[in-house]
């Protein structure tokens, strides 16, 4: 069934501010997260993806005050990931007004988390986030924001998450992150062809052509971080979104 195209700005929260990384390293300050939400409101982004990239490493859960603020301010649905470790975290995030919650590392250490959350809240609200790096001719799932190789096949993991009840897979390429070199299309088509749930691609978008290629490769939606917050080779901060013409060219 044809649906409107999903093009999703991805915002990374680090030390309370908005940052962007390159291959999950070299965080560069972008600005205040609430300001970015307001700008994306003005630019009429259809959805937002917000990741707290410190939460897991710091052993803490989500910042629910921030989530409440974001959910009140945003004129579009929001998916949040970062430090989600329990069904209670899901509950609190939904209570804060967030529409969808993503789990990453906790889904690996607590195999029944996705299943429990999906049963309680419904699959549609539960997303599984998978970070992937190229390893010679294949791929391997990474955890700890790219610091640890879990030595798992992303296709196998995506299928496992789908069976557990995840309603969506957020598939992020560590290698392409922040490079603007295009999505890892082979990775996308490998995972998308293996599962029936939507796969959202993230990592490497440099322009509308990249969005189109990722959708053709089987992504149900395309997310982008750097592409929407930086402009030009010197990565000057300038928040942008898809134009009407850009959207029309994808639909």
């Amino acid at each position, binding site marked *: 069934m044809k*649906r409107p195209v999903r093009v999703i700005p991805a915002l990374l929260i680090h030390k309370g501010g908005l940052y962007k990384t390159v291959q999950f390293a070299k965080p560069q300050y972008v600005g205040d997260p609430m300001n970015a939400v307001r700008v994306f409101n003005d630019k009429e982004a259809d959805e937002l993806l917000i990741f707290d990239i410190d939460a897991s490493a710091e052993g803490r859960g989500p910042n629910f005050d921030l989530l409440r603020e974001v959910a009140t301010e945003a*004129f*579009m649905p929001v998916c949040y990931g970062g430090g989600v470790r329990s069904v209670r975290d899901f509950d609190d995030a939904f209570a804060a007004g967030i*529409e969808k919650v993503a789990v990453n590392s906790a889904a690996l250490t607590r195999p029944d988390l996705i299943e429990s959350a999906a049963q309680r809240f419904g699959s549609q609200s539960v997303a599984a986030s998978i970070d992937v790096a190229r390893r010679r001719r294949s791929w391997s799932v990474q955890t700890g924001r790219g610091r640890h190789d879990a030595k798992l096949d992303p296709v196998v993991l995506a299928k496992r998450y789908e069976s557990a009840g995840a309603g969506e897979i957020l598939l992020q390429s560590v290698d392409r992150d922040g490079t603007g070199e295009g999505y890892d299309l082979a990775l996308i088509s490998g995972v998308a062809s293996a599962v029936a749930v939507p796969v959202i691609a993230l990592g490497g978008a440099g322009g509308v052509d990249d969005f189109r290629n990722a959708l053709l490769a089987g992504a149900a939606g395309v997310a982008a971080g750097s592409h929407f917050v930086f402009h030009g080779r010197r990565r000057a901060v300038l928040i942008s979104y898809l134009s009407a013409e850009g959207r029309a060219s994808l639909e």
Partner: protein
Amino acid sequence: MIGVVGYGLGNVHSIANMLRRIGQDVAICDTAKGIRECDRLILPGVGAFDAGVQQLNASGLRDCLEEAVGAGTPILGICLGMQLLGTRSDEGVERGLGFINAESTRLNTPDGLPLPHMGWNWVQPKPESGLFAADDGVPRFYFLHSYALRCSDDSIVTATATYGDTFVCAVASGNVYGVQFHPEKSHRFGMQVLRRFAQLS
């Protein structure tokens, strides 16, 4: 003053935020007195029908809502809020507000489309009806629901959408309006609908 009925369900702050953004005076009303001071009302809501009715009954606001709407105050139901404006729902056993002659039934999804219907979708408004106008083109909105209104009288239907099958996504009957989608999560399209509701004479 637009009153967003605070009976415990739905993201009242998000709705109030969008109303303020379009320049409206808005108050979140959780008392009968607050509701009486408003010249139009919004009834939000998410979740299951029976929980919605029970929450509304427990809030003590049901009577003054019935009074206000009976006196002609325009009211806009959003998502579950719209379903509560009807008489009943297949989803539960409780009695709806009955402001419109409609009941809620589960979306029919042939070809195994997953429920709930969640995400953006295009809407087909009846031209120049209720909260839609001809120059809207084909608007789209954010949806999150498994049930939809079925109206005895088709003339109150002001917009439909398609998810597998076509279903009712907006109604207008006298001073009673309803939308199945979330205008507060549908940026400019939602603002347009709320603006028209605010500007009703």
